[in-house]
């Protein structure tokens, strides 16, 4: 399959390069101004450094907290909206689908720019949205705004695939709209919910655009190592690609384990697909 060839070239090859590089450290001497630094093979150096990097560990814990709250809220809303548009007239549905889709097409950077202005319109007042407890949720709001419609579309497309006989049967049995939604439709879109959850978990782990733009207006509440990917991006700019690669590999392993755990948890009742 051509997909496989491209996949190997565009994903696996760069991943291998990155993993390989993460096994080296850059080393300079003295002022470090004579020629480039030398690379030394020290397979564990970057990893031990990363695990001792309190800012990085803190960032991982932060996105973990973010994900535990934001992903269920966003998917809850997306599911609710999907069920609602499934029960209204085609014209209303089309209009709402359009409205919900629009935030998703706004580039993350622009979305964060707009929200940063909405959060802090007054030059001489501290924005309440970046007070101690609220910062993470102000970021979460931008992410929710952007991605709820997208997830709604996926869940809705699964709803349309439910055979109408099943719905009719439930209705004949006298079930109300809400009961059908909860007991019939929801279980039928389970695989879509699992799909969107896993991809949301991955997206959360890679949170970058929103916090890095909001950083400017956050009054220091968002640091340059607020999320793991921001920390990795810092390392790339040092430039220390090797360390950035190690950070990313650790992040990928953590997220992979979490996603796998989630799959295991929900998959006791059959495979997630089909």
């Amino acid at each position: 399959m051509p997909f496989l060839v491209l996949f190997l070239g565009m994903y696996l090859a760069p991943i291998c390069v990155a993993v390989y590089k993460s096994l080296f450290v850059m080393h300079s001497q003295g002022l470090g101004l004579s020629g480039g630094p030398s690379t030394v093979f020290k397979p564990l150096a970057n990893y031990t450094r990363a695990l001792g990097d309190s800012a990085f560990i803190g960032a991982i814990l932060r996105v973990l907290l973010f994900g535990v709250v934001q992903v269920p809220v966003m998917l809850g809303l997306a599911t609710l909206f999907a069920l609602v548009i499934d029960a209204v007239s085609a014209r209303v549905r089309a209009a709402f689908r359009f409205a919900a889709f629009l935030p998703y097409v706004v580039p993350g950077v622009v979305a964060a720019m707009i929200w940063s202005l909405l959060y802090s319109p007054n030059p001489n007042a501290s924005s309440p949205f970046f007070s101690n407890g609220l910062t993470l949720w102000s970021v979460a709001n931008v992410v929710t705004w952007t991605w709820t419609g997208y997830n709604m579309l996926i869940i809705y497309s699964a709803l349309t695939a439910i055979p109408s006989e099943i719905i009719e049967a439930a209705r004949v049995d006298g079930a109300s709209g809400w009961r059908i939604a909860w007991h019939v439709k929801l279980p039928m879109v389970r695989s879509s919910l699992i799909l969107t959850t896993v991809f949301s978990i991955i997206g959360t782990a890679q949170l970058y655009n929103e916090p890095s733009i909001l950083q400017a207006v956050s009054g220091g509440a968002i640091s340059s190592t607020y999320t793991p990917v921001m920390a990795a991006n810092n390392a790339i700019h040092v430039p220390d690609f090797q360390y950035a690669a190690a950070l990313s590999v650790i992040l990928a392993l953590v997220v992979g384990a979490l996603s796998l755990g989630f799959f295991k948890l929900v998959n006791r009742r059959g495979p997630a697909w089909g």
Partner: protein
Amino acid sequence: MGNGTKWAQGVALAVAAVAIAGCGSSGGGGGSTGSAAKPVHLSFWGWAPGYQDSVKAFNASHPNIKVSFQQVTPGSKGGYQKMLTAVKAGNGPCLAQVGYETLPTFVAQGAVTDISSYANGSAGEFTPAAWNGVRVAGKTYGVPVDIGPMAMFYNKQLFSKYHIAVPKTWAQYRAAGLALKKANPAVKLTSGMTDYDFAGFDWQAGAPWYGTSGNTWKVSYNSPAGQKVANYWQSLVSDGLISKAPTYDPTWLSGLANGQIATVVGAVWQAGTLKASKPISGKFAVAPMPQWSAGANVVGNSGGSSTAVLKGCANTQAAWQFAHWMSTDRKSWPNLVTKGGLFPADKSLQSLPVLNAGDPFFGGQKIFQVFKAAAPNVRQGWVWGPGMQAATTSLNDGLNKAWVGKETVPAAISSAQKAIVRELKQQGLSVKS
């Protein structure tokens, strides 16, 4: 899927063939020797508005050399990363726009070429601070293009409305802030500066962030002079004179426009930043940078960049020839002033007529005259260190908190000092704090 597999094999073969062909030949450096009939080709990466026009003018007047300009995103927004990656891959450009603060990083990465033998004879043409910026550890790596001497942009309508004299010293500056606050609590003196803008304050005060002694870096964010600057700015925060708007944010521009933020102490190119907002037009004027002692005449610098010759450039001499021409050509420079808001590092260009014109945006004031007077007074002795982007990241994390009162400025400087020493040691460099 029989047919599909065959097709896949075909694609795979094609990709493999391209890959093998690619690996067989080595990447060129982007330069070649040539004669009048066969001109030398040089590639040049940069981002400042107006560079493209300079390159066009050069190509028109130099048949032996053909420069092709490629725009990249501004250095700290990805341009430097692209240049360093390209050099590593062996297909970097011959010439690149590199800020003075980033040049040592390029040297440390082994990404630039020593052009001392061509360039050193021209040392006297440039403002000393600029020339100093292209010299790293005794060698010259680029040609200075522009510099960022600092001054004070102030809302003259506010100052005259409340009968407050334009401050000449930092003590008067603070007093002016208190007077403005007393007259109208909604008016803040200024906004918090970060990274290279804040460096300009330390630069003026004689508090360089780096130094070398022998083969060892000396990191000195926390020097006594640096602490003096930090304590001063902390006093402004404590007095409630600093706006919460982050500098360069749209709310900052609207604060300047509606009289909620009274001044900006910054480099010459801030004029261009202010001009992005029409409502500011006619309200602001430019005065010299406030001084630490009355009657002194020392300023800092913020920003400015050089044209560096990158590693792998096959024709260093032609590269130098172009870079020198671009920095010193009288005909093409006015365009860089009007389009990019640049201020020339070349001393003789500072007398260009375009720099002596009144600017209607600033009520007809000949604002460049203020900067022209400031340029030779940029303080000597400033040194940039390796890895400035990482260093300013740690600094900004603290300063951003300090400007809204969540931390103090001196504490921010101290923690930046620690983080930067740690980072340099991590790279294996020899460091003293």
